[in-house]
């Protein structure tokens, strides 16, 4: 066991996208139950530090695997495929166009205070995202087509951000 081992190895699970999340949860809790600083509150400095490093590592690993987008990114990283999140401008024109339309619809609903429309957009986007994750599961676990998966992950990054913005708009209307 060391900090360089990959997160799937840390939790002792198969490196797949379609994870059993409740199993991951319970493994995460089991590990924290062993390494968490609360278990070493009355211990010496060296042990406290070691425990903090382990607990930090377990938290990091859990965060990377818990959410599907993060998990996909991490799997691609392990497979040596770079997401290139920083220079992610080279998306197909039709996808970008679609994104602009979405954004306009959200902005319009937001400025018009149209709660109902925002809810509708939210639900539509959510089900779109869900089916894209199903596709991603096939690409990563069955086809192992990492190149196509990388493209799908980039798209999902846009969509998740958009979903966040809709939630944000809904929140601002509620307040």
């Amino acid at each position: 066991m060391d900090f360089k081992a990959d997160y799937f190895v840390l939790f002792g699970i198969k490196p797949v996208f379609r994870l059993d999340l409740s199993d991951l949860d319970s493994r995460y809790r089991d590990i924290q139950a062993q390494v968490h600083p609360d278990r070493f509150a009355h211990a010496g400095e060296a042990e406290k530090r070691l425990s903090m490093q382990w607990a930090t590592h377990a938290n990091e690993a859990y965060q990377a695997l818990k959410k599907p987008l993060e998990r996909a990114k991490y799997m691609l990283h392990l497979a040596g495929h770079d997401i290139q999140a920083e220079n992610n401008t080279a998306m197909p024109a039709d996808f970008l166009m679609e994104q602009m339309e979405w954004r306009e619809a959200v902005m319009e609903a937001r400025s018009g205070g149209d709660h109902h429309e925002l809810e509708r957009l939210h639900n539509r986007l959510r089900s779109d995202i869900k089916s894209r994750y199903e596709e991603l599961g096939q690409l990563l676990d069955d086809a192992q087509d990492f190149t196509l998966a990388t493209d799908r992950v980039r798209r999902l990054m846009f969509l998740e951000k958009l979903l966040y913005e809709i939630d944000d708009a809904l929140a601002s209307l509620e307040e």
Partner: protein
Amino acid sequence: MALFQIAEPGESAAPHEHKLAIGIDLGTTNSLVATVRSGIAVCLNDDQGRPLLPSVVRYHADGSTEVGYDAQKNQAVDPKNTIVSVKRFMGRGTKDIAHIESMPYDFIEAPGMVRVKTHAGIKSPVETSAEILKVLKARAEAGLGGDLVGAVITVPAYFDDAQRQATKDAARLAGLNVLRLLNEPTAAAIAYGLDNAAEGVYAVYDLGGGTFDISILKLTKGVFEVMSTGGDSALGGDDFDHRIYCWVIEQSKPQPLSPEDSRRLMMRCREAKEFLTNNPEAPISLRLASGEMIDVKLDVATFANITQTLISKTLQPVKKALRDAGLRAEDIKGVVMVGGATRMPQIQKAIGDFFRQEPLTNLDPDKVVALGAATQANLLAGNKTGKDDWLLLDVIPLSLGLETMGGLTEKVIPRNSTIPTARAQEFTTFKDGQTAMAIHVVQGEREMVSDCRSLARFELRGIPPMVAGAARIRVTFQVDADGLLSVTAREQTTGVESSITVKPSYGLSDDEIAGMLKDSMAHAKDDAVARALKEAQVEAQRMIEATEAALAEDAHLLNEAEIAKIKATIAKLAETMAGDNRRLINIAMDDLGYETQTFAHRRMDQSIKKVLSGRNVDDIEVGEEGEKA
């Protein structure tokens, strides 16, 4: 230094003795201390049977202090030297403190945190809080009849790094070993959750005198997980008094009130508020200095009506916290009520309506935080039994970020991240030959740096001169289990590596703490030197016991030579400990700590392997079958 004390469920880590640990609710208005006795958390009362200690400290000219009810009584006589609600000043500058102009103190702006000038000298809020903690510590030692191994001290979930650090420093100054800083709502949930042994998602609604906090917690198989927190630091029970006050003025339209009249009327309003908890109607009458008489009756319906906006103001953060947790009101299994203000029936009704269930009120809302803190302290001290074993996974309440171009904030660790947590970020130089760079760490959710709290500014120096963009400086932000930040920077270019640890600028330096300790000793009867020696001896004894327990359990992880080396180091420490040289004891403890490092690593690895082994293979096969099906 103790080695790992990992006990299997049902088996105690240290079977021989019960360690004395306390929980302290260091409140704005009142503070409490509690402990676990025969498996039950109880508040410790003062010699007059009172559990509360008013958080009021009066400084006398000779440097002595008066804390609690006596200080509170004399508040009006000596306002400049009687510090109330010091919690509001912890880790705060003058510009952060609300209504500072109406306070009677001589404030002095100091780097990081305000100071108050009293006739006993200039006092930091850390010192004043330490006075409160000392009284509670003495109460606990007298009541429990022994040395305390440590304390859990609660802080509002919304406390930022500066406020947490100040609280920890105060405890250190009071001579308390802090086992953990615990968020108040989490403490409340521990007090309830374990009593009721219930799994599910809970909301903790905490309306104190001056602040409101909401937390959403998940309880699963002995794990408390904080899913989100929120609140309003300028909303509390006092605002309800104020609403009644305004209503009375509107009803009776008296001549303008003198400050004294206004203070007395406010007190009557508070009494009326409390009276309405169990009565349909409260009389409010007061003869003013002018002879004019105020005489009105406030009924429950009117009270509910005039405070409705305050209650809906608390529901906004509740909704936000639910949203942050990705939940709806109906997902909440129970609502824990904390703070005396939650006794108000209209609050219980509003919360009941919102969550469509009766809130939990069977524990005293004034005591519930201290009781939970004591329960956690008992666990952290190592007094666990199999059935009471649980783990708390808490979160950081506010995002940590860095200043970037144009005064904007870049989030480094988002709020609600489970702690401990860390994040490394790489920086580079933007000029040829640049050898230094400035880093500004802030805390808060806003986009502009100026709207966030500045935690630390520091400079990285000694970067080897290179062309712009060639240097690689890795800065690591670590938040520990108390929610406290430390920053390390490592420059890792041409094999030159340097590492620094930065303590945020508002934290007191070790020298300052030492100076304050010396000052406080000058006025205390106990001898600082003797106390320090005793502490070192207790610590050394603890370390020896823990190491021996570890050897008894896990000697198979070591070879003969390693065992012999550790045993020799133990013997050396035992020998040194019998003497009275504190410095030598500390050196011997460091030696033992060093000699047992590898052992500690192997024990940690073993425990992790143990927890995951045995089920891996089976689970994976089940998973595959599941996929085929």
